[in-house]
């Protein structure tokens, strides 16, 4: 049997690599219409003509020089893993820019197949590309494809198999002008002496990278061959100085200029035919002129976000009610069918109230994700980043920090874990740290149910408005904390921000539904597994140890006493028994481990109006924020005695004497800003390279959130005394 073939999908950001990867492997990797979605390489498999193919999706890059983490990941894979074939996914509608990377693949001498993606978009723009002519000019197979629909993908795989079967190509030799070429010739002997490096990289390519001042290659050369390395660096510096004096540019600008010149010469040799004039503005540019306008742009952005919240909360209220009724019915059914005991208590208070409390928010999550998918797939989110960039700079963050913020829940519903990971794209360590310490302040998908629950219970008349305000508050606090960090612990200059904006695209219904369903399914899966486990654990913490026999006997004697004294008055008896049962349940909860923790914390939390039962939920929220809703569900259902009057958690909180709008606002603020969940903390430790920052994040956020909650509560009760 033939060995499995390894192919790497490489290309510019947003060229459609992940779309092709999903089509080839049947995976559902996240694809977004903005650069930087894929930071790590992803793997999948497929079968073509009976041959197993391992497909590796690399992060999008503009060049093979180590300017960013994505470029390093991609280059290291190509050099160290040596895939059988590199499929360079090229956006046909933006050929010139995309061929710049292809040019570097040719110089590196990797077995290359060019997938000319989005030819339909190019044709709509009046650009036709002669794939055969391009193939003969570059000397590698060029296959037109449409990755979205899968058109041409079989032909692409045929070309991949044929390329894998042929001999490894020689690196292409490009000329870079007399100064650079002379320097490369002079460096030949010293490069040849660096045997450790020449075993991995082509000689001329090494010379070019040294001239481009590629940090990784310079370091490797000096480490492996210090003597030859110093000579090479000295030669590069002399060329650099000469070019600076004569042309006022660094060698990399001259190299890039010659590469673009080479590409232009190819394109102008009958490869590209344009039906329209070259400087014609496309629809995307025309939209941008309005959508990113300095006055209209922010207004449109605020309007779009407000519409998203209105759409989510208006249309999802009916299915949310259905689900609430369904879980209430289920709870009543279980209560009627099963005999009293710990199992029934666990099913009702642990499973149904816990998991049901989280699942009840699925319609809201689904509508919110659909809206976000629409903005993301259309390319609008990248424009949001462009418009937010200036504000971010003012607060000491980088333009690239916008995406981690949005991914983490900048538009409520994201997740801090990928947000923290997306901060890798930042080059400056201080800006990266400031970003990954502040992204957990965003309203992630796990906080969304808690916010919806409390806003629904106490501010139901203006649900969308309050959600919108909570998002603005999250942004404001995160940015202010970032500014504080950048002025104190993380002082340092800002680095410039340059980002390519993807063109606007019409999102496909299929794509929108896949994105919505994938994210919703993740939420449901988490509710059915992690949240279920934690809910049961917390239910056990809130049930055990049970009341001592003496206390149980005391309540039994109270019941008997009530029966004897109120034998004739049936209504009075029922009320008295109900009160005894409620007192017993409350006493039991206070006696349990969870109750004791909650009571111990109440000494401090009462300054923010937070009672001991809510404390149990907040402690559970360290494990996962979704657990807050399920724990509140369990804590507030334990005192319930009449199964005929099963009410939703929202109604229970609304009726509870310890809760009022001021307490709700203080609790909301605390939940929004206190310690990130456990997984995010681990991720911060990994990304920052130190547990010190993870501990800082937990401690700082909790103290900050507590001070904010106390301030809200104390001012609130002064303004609105009970």
């Amino acid at each position, binding site marked *: 049997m033939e060995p499995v073939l390894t192919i790497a999908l490489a290309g510019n950001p947003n060229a459609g690599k992940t779309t092709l990867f999903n089509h080839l492997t049947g995976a559902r990797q996240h694809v977004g219409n903005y650069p930087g979605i894929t930071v790590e390489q992803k793997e999948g498999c497929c079968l073509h003509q009976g041959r197993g193919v391992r497909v590796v999706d690399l992060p999008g890059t503009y060049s093979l020089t180590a300017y960013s983490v994505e470029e390093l990941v991609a280059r290291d894979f190509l050099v160290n893993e040596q895939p059988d074939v590199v499929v360079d996914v090229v956006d046909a509608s933006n050929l010139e820019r995309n061929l710049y990377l292809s040019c570097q693949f040719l110089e590196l001498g990797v077995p290359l197949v060019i997938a000319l993606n989005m030819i339909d978009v190019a044709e709509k723009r009046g650009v036709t590309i002669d794939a055969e002519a391009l193939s003969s000019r570059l000397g590698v197979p060029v296959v037109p494809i449409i990755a979205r629909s899968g058109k041409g993908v079989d032909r692409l795989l045929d070309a991949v198999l044929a390329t894998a079967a042929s001999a490894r190509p020689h690196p292409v030799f490009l000329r870079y002008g007399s100064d650079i070429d002379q320097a490369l010739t002079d460096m030949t002997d010293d490069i040849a002496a660096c045997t450790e490096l020449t075993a991995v990289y082509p000689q001329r390519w090494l010379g070019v990278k040294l001239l481009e001042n590629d940090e990784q290659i310079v370091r490797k050369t000096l480490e492996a061959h210090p003597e030859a390395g110093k000579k090479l660096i000295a030669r590069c510096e002399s060329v650099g100085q000469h070019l600076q004096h004569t042309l006022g540019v*660094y060698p990399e600008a001259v190299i890039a200029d010659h590469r*673009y010149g080479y590409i232009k010469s190819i394109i102008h040799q009958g490869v590209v035919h344009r039906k329209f004039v070259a400087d014609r503005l496309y629809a995307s540019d025309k939209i941008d002129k309005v959508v990113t*306008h300095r*006055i209209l742009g922010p207004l449109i952005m605020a309007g779009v976000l407000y519409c998203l919240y209105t759409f989510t909360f208006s249309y999802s209220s009916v299915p949310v009610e259905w689900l609430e009724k369904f879980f209430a019915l289920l709870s009543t059914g279980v209560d009627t069918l099963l005999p009293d005991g710990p199992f029934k208590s666990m099913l009702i208070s642990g499973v149904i109230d816990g998991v049901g409390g989280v699942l009840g928010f699925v319609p809201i999550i689904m509508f919110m994700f659909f809206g976000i998918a629409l903005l993301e797939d259309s390319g609008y989110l990248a424009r949001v980043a*462009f418009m937010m960039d*200036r*504000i971010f700079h003012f607060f000491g963050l980088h333009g690239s920090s916008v995406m981690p913020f949005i991914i983490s829940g900048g538009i409520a519903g994201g997740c801090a874990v990928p947000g923290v990971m997306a901060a890798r794209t930042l*080059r400056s360590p201080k800006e990266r740290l400031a970003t990954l310490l502040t992204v957990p302040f965003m309203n992630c998908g796990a906080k969304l149910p808690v916010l919806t629950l409390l806003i629904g219970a106490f501010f139901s008349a203006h649900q969308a408005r309050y959600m919108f305000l909570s998002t603005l508050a999250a942004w404001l606090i995160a940015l202010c904390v970032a500014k504080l960090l950048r002025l104190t612990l993380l002082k340092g200059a800002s680095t410039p921000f*340059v980002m390519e*904006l993807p063109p606007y695209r019409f999102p496909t219904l299929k794509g929108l539904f896949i994105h919505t369903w994938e994210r919703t399914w993740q939420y449901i899966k988490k509710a059915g597994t992690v949240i279920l486990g934690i809910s049961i654990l917390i239910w056990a913490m809130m049930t055990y140890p049970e009341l001592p026999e003496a206390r149980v006997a005391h309540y039994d004697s109270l019941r008997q006493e009530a029966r004897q004294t109120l034998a004739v008055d049936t209504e009075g008896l029922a009320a008295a028994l109900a009160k005894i049962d409620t007192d017993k349940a409350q006493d039991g909860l206070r006696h349990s481990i969870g109750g004791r923790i909650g009571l111990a914390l109440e000494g401090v939390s009462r300054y923010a109006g937070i009672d001991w039962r809510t404390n149990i939920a907040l402690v559970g929220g360290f494990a996962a924020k979704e657990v807050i809703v399920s724990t509140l569900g369990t804590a507030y259902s334990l005192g319930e005695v009449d199964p005929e009057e099963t009410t939703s958690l929202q109604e229970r909180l609304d009726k509870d004497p310890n809760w009022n709008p001021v307490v709700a606002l203080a609790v909301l603020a605390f939940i929004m800003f206190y310690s990130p969940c456990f997984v995010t903390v681990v991720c911060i430790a990994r990304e920052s390279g130190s547990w010190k920052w993870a501990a800082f994040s937990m401690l700082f956020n909790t103290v900050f959130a507590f001070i904010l909650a106390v301030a809200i509560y104390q001012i609130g009760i002064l303004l609105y005394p009970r």
Partner: protein
Amino acid sequence: MPGTRMDQSEIFCHFFSDIQALCRRRRQCGKRTDQTATPLSESCCHSRMRVCAVTGDRQTCARMAALGVLPGSELELLCKGGGRHCMIKVNGGTISLDESAAAAVLVAPA
């Protein structure tokens, strides 16, 4: 000649623009025609330009060069954001530059 006639979208965009700022920029543009190079951050909207120099740290210059923003290349300033950060079209792609990056690109009318 490219850039001298406004198409419909430009008229629409100008219609919504802050008139005062627009007039100020036009005056400045008139003055700049005889100057050799001005930073992109201070250039007028919706015009074609040629890059004269890219200043700043070496890594930023290299990254800009990889994106096609290098001396001699032609670009079109599409839109300006709230401040001096801007959106340009170069080699068929749209690139956003923040204030410091835009200030590092010196341009002259194409």
